[in-house]
């Protein structure tokens, strides 16, 4: 092991220990007590700052470092869709967040699967959605594992092999999330945000100065030599034009607000108003996303000729090439935590959905929050192990996987968002829509028809989903459900209403 790699690896190792310690510290004094609500949604007690940190932490994943820079490098402008959909999603989260929050609080729910089970009055529907959502989330965990593995291996100058790096990602995350749940994830997010904001702000200034004598010359050169990268549909005949950009951003903005991990953040909030304040502040975080994209473009000049999965390393090639070892280690830690935090929440959500909506149906667990919590923790370990095994056995390129996850999850939008505000959407309507949308997404994506006619395949599927859901709801059978609307539907709690925001 050379000197550089020893330094970078030591910095990295130190911070990993700190991460686990922080996660464990988060629940000190709360012990192993509390049921699934404490573990899954932090006892619904997180304030604005923690929610901001946590949700920013979920949004800013290893994709931001690897895929975003890689897309910037390969295609250019199309990658900006990430910023577009996050901004739009955070904005409508102003309404959706408090609505879901108050619904869950009123009825004692801890996940989206809980919500659909309650809304449609069918526990098995919650179990079904939990299984489908898990299928969509598992590739995401794998994505974080591979993302972190690549980063760790690169910043250790190859001293830590990919396989070991994957294992470290899995072990660190599982260790603290099993013990500390959502609260621990929020605490680790604080460390992560400090490092991410610090290192990216530094890189944003340093890289252009180091390689191009400043922003002016860098941007001038970019405009003069690489104009193809600077508008849609980007460089290299990607087919990712304006229509694709708009439909993808629109679809993802709807999906991100019901994404199980986002919802976990919503439900962790102390009050509806904490979420509203958060919706104002969160979009600022997206400014940071411009940095890896610009650095991906800068890499075009510095390390030309990266192809395929190698282009995902565009940013780190610059980092390793231009910085001293301890700083390389620090950037690596920031990127690694950007895998760990979202991965922790993904695993937590899978555990929660199964603990409550699938295994919670088992009589021995029904209505027993502590046993459900234990079941959930067991599922976390199982899900993590499965994702790790998939990583070794079936590795894949980063971005495609996340698109399948998103387009699949998008098919839950009518069942959840529309269902919670519109009573006439029936169980069979929502289910048929989901089935049609889900099959269509798989058919299009796996046969290489995404985008189709320039339109995001998931958006087409969502259209079909919605039409079928409406048609079946209005024309099909109407299940008997004599609960009053107030019991079944969700509403945005009135602002600053002490009866809602102050209730214990």
């Amino acid at each position: 092991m050379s000197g550089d790699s020893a330094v970078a690896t030591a910095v990295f190792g130190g911070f990993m220990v700190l991460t686990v310690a922080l996660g464990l510290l988060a629940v000190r004094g709360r012990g192993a007590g509390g049921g699934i609500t404490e573990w899954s949604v932090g006892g619904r007690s997180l304030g604005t700052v923690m929610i901001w940190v946590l949700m920013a932490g979920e949004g800013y994943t290893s994709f931001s470092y690897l895929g975003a820079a890689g897309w910037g490098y390969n295609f250019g402008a199309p990658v900006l869709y990430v910023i577009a959909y996050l901004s739009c999603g955070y904005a409508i989260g102003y309404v959706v967040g408090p609505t879901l929050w108050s619904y869950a609080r009123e009825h004692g729910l801890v996940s989206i699967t809980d919500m659909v089970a309650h809304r449609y009055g069918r526990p098995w529907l919650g179990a079904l959605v939990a299984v489908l959502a898990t299928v969509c989330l598992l590739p995401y965990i794998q994505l974080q594992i591979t993302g972190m593995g690549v980063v760790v291996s690169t910043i250790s100058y190859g001293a830590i092999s990919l396989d070991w790096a994957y294992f470290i990602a899995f072990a660190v995350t599982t260790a603290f999330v099993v013990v500390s749940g959502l609260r621990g994830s929020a605490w680790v997010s604080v460390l992560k945000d400090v490092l991410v904001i610090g290192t990216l702000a530094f890189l944003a200034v340093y890289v252009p100065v180091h390689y191009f004598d400043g922003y002016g010359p860098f941007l001038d050169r970019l405009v003069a030599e690489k104009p193809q990268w600077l508008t849609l549909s980007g460089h290299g005949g990607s087919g990712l034009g304006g229509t694709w950009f708009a439909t993808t951003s629109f679809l993802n903005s709807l999906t991100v607000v019901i994404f199980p991990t986002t919802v976990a953040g919503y439900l962790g909030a102390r009050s509806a108003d904490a979420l509203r304040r958060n919706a104002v502040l969160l979009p600022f975080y997206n400014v940071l996303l411009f940095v890896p994209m610009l650095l991906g473009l800068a890499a075009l000049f510095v390390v030309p000729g990266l192809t395929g999965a190698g282009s995902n390393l565009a940013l780190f090639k610059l980092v390793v090439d231009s910085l001293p070892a301890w700083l390389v280690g620090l950037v690596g830690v920031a990127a690694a935590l950007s895998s760990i935090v979202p991965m922790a929440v993904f695993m937590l959500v899978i555990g929660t959905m199964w603990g409550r909506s699938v295994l919670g149906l088992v009589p021995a667990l029904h209505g027993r929050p502590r046993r459900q919590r234990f079941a959930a923790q067991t599922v976390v370990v199982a899900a993590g192990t499965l994702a790790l095994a998939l990583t070794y056995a079936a590795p894949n390129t980063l971005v495609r996987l996340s698109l399948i996850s998103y387009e699949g999850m998008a098919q839950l939008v009518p069942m959840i968002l529309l269902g919670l505000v519109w009573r006439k959407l029936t169980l069979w309507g929502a289910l048929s829509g989901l089935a049609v949308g889900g099959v269509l997404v798989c058919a299009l994506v796996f046969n290489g028809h995404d985008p189709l006619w320039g339109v995001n395949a998931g958006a087409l599927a969502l259209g079909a989903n919605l039409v079928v859901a409406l048609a079946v709801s209005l024309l099909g059978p109407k299940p008997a459900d004599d609960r009053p609307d107030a019991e079944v539907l969700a509403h945005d709690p009135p602002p600053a209403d002490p009866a809602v925001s102050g209730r214990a």
Partner: protein
Amino acid sequence: MLKRPALLWLLLPYVLYLGALPLVDRVHPTVLGLPFLFFWLLLATLLTPAGVHLARRSDRKRGRA
């Protein structure tokens, strides 16, 4: 929604990022050296919190009234 018209501010990012796209998908003129599309999207990213803030401000006024 109709009772809280200020919630329309939440659609601001959709207009800026998606609606305006055909008009802003261009390299020139550059602003502060930034290609125009990048400049526009950066502007939209800074204006989005302002839009959400306006929705919230109106809600808070109603809450006090």
